[in-house]
């Protein structure tokens, strides 16, 4: 694929109780004392009207919220549901919830927690929310691998398997968290960055 035919048409970064979209600080939560609280406040600030949110584990909440912010700025409405792909990655898989589930086993194991003991459930939650039916993958790597995310998304876009790809990094372990999601599309958007591993990395480090 000619890399110049795809562009990063939006990105959302959530870390340290701050939500950025396309490099702009949208919101900073001064009050939350925990990740759980921060995510709830973020839900109230950016979304609401989605009671299923409260049932999710923190990884899904974080991914869901980042996708919400990303798609408000870069909606995927021009793409067929079957043509929107997701390529996500993180370090700790679903370990954060695995641990919580194990704690529930001592009493009565919770089916609602067990459901979230897979990292890719967050992909399902985003797809359910937005109706995306395209190809998807979840990689578990020690650190954000811009080259791998780029290669994987470029393949999907280049082979015609997708016309848009939401990709990036979604990590949650206890109170440590970080979300960096990109919207990559095969269309010209004024001012959009060319889709390259370098540009993914630059945004990640910004």
């Amino acid at each position, binding site marked *: 694929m000619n890399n110049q035919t795809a562009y990063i048409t939006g990105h959302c970064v959530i870390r340290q109780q701050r939500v950025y979209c396309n490099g702009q600080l949208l919101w900073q939560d001064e009050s939350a004392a925990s990740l759980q609280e921060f995510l709830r406040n973020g839900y109230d600030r950016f979304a609401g009207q989605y009671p299923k949110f409260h049932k999710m584990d923190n990884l899904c909440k974080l991914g869901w919220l980042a996708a919400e912010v990303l798609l408000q700025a870069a909606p995927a409405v021009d793409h067929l549901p079957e043509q929107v792909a*997701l390529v996500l990655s993180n370090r700790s898989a679903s370990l954060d919830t*695995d641990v919580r589930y194990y704690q529930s086993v001592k009493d009565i194991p919770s*089916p609602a927690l067990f*459901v979230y003991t897979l990292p890719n459930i967050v992909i*399902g939650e985003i797809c*359910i929310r937005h109706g995306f039916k395209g190809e998807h993958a*979840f990689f578990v790597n020690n650190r954000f691998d811009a080259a791998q995310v780029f290669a994987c998304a470029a393949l999907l876009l280049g082979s015609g398997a997708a016309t848009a790809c939401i990709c990036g990094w979604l990590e949650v372990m206890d109170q440590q968290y970080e979300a960096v999601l990109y919207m990559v599309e095969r269309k010209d958007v004024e001012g959009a960055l060319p889709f390259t591993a370098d540009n993914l990395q630059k945004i990640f480090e910004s």
Partner: protein
Amino acid sequence: MSGNVWIAGGGVICGIGTDLQACLEAFAQMQPGMQDMQYLRSIHRGVLPVAEVKADNAALAARAGMPEHISRTALLSKIAAEEAWASSGLGARAQYRVGFVSANTVGGMDKTEEFFASYLQHPPSGGRLQQVVHHECGSVTELVADAMGIRHHVTTISTACSSGANALMYGARLIRNNIADVVIAGGTDALTRFTLNGFNTLMILDQAACRPFDDTRTGLNLGEGAGYVVLVSDAIAATLPQAPWCRLSGYANANDAYHQTASSPEGTGNYLAMKGALEMSGLQPEDIAYINLHGTGTQNNDDSEARAIQRLFAPHYPPMSSTKSFTGHTLGASGGIEAVFAALAVQQGIIYPNAHFTTPMKECPLVPATTFSSGNRIPHVMSNSFGFSGSCSCLVFSETV
């Protein structure tokens, strides 16, 4: 993106055999692998049947040439990956750019469970931390890649029960994009108390042998194991000492976008995956000569899968069966194990049996094959792997001509 992707070989270890040949014999003799637990320690022993690999960790470690203290997930992986490699006749790995794409969902959970038992007895110093070093999924892949001297491209995919199939898709793309010459692709998962208890809380474990696609089905049996194929490029295929088994002619993955764990009633994601894989292979539904079903034996999966098959194939259905009625559901490994079975079905004209089938489902009366046969003409085989999060994958294998 260009060129074909060939299956040069495959290896399996699972509840019905510790190598591929043993698995074939179990199919031929109609011997499913579900039994009372022998190796996993759980309060469900004697109640929930499972399809364990019939060997303890010491025996597996000896065969894998790895230390006994590492995760069973890694031991199973190494054994099946080595079998796959040996069957390909490719010789020394150093001559090629070799990739290892391995799927799993439990990682080193078995060892973590051992650690916690000791830790909780004497916190905070009880237990040996060495046991949790390889807890995470990627670590299991790295252990095996290191032991096999594979460095060129190593990665782990974790997308629930479609993981193994997605590993083949990813591996095929590495080859078609000239990133690797040869890729060992598939998956591995050991049985753990974590998964057993988890599926038990979802109330989808059958206390008898599972009955996929049967009206009386009440759930799945868990299994364990590993399965890998060796994918090679056109150039490498031409150098093989024997003809490759078949081609990986189509693959697709789609999201059902319905529920975290349940399939949509009409099997939208299942349908999209099968349709996508067929389109990529340039085939029509009537070209498919055998379908290896996802067929877990749960009410929900089999109903949705059958409806999706009906939508795509009606009124002419190829023979189909769920090999999970023999191996149990091996989760992250299942896509890899079933890919090996499916690829071999093309090469040897095999139709695998579906054990314990008596009564067609009322809602969607598809009748699976119930006897083993080989030497059939099977030009194209479809293998389905559908998983939690709505992750639906389908692979199509085609004859070499």
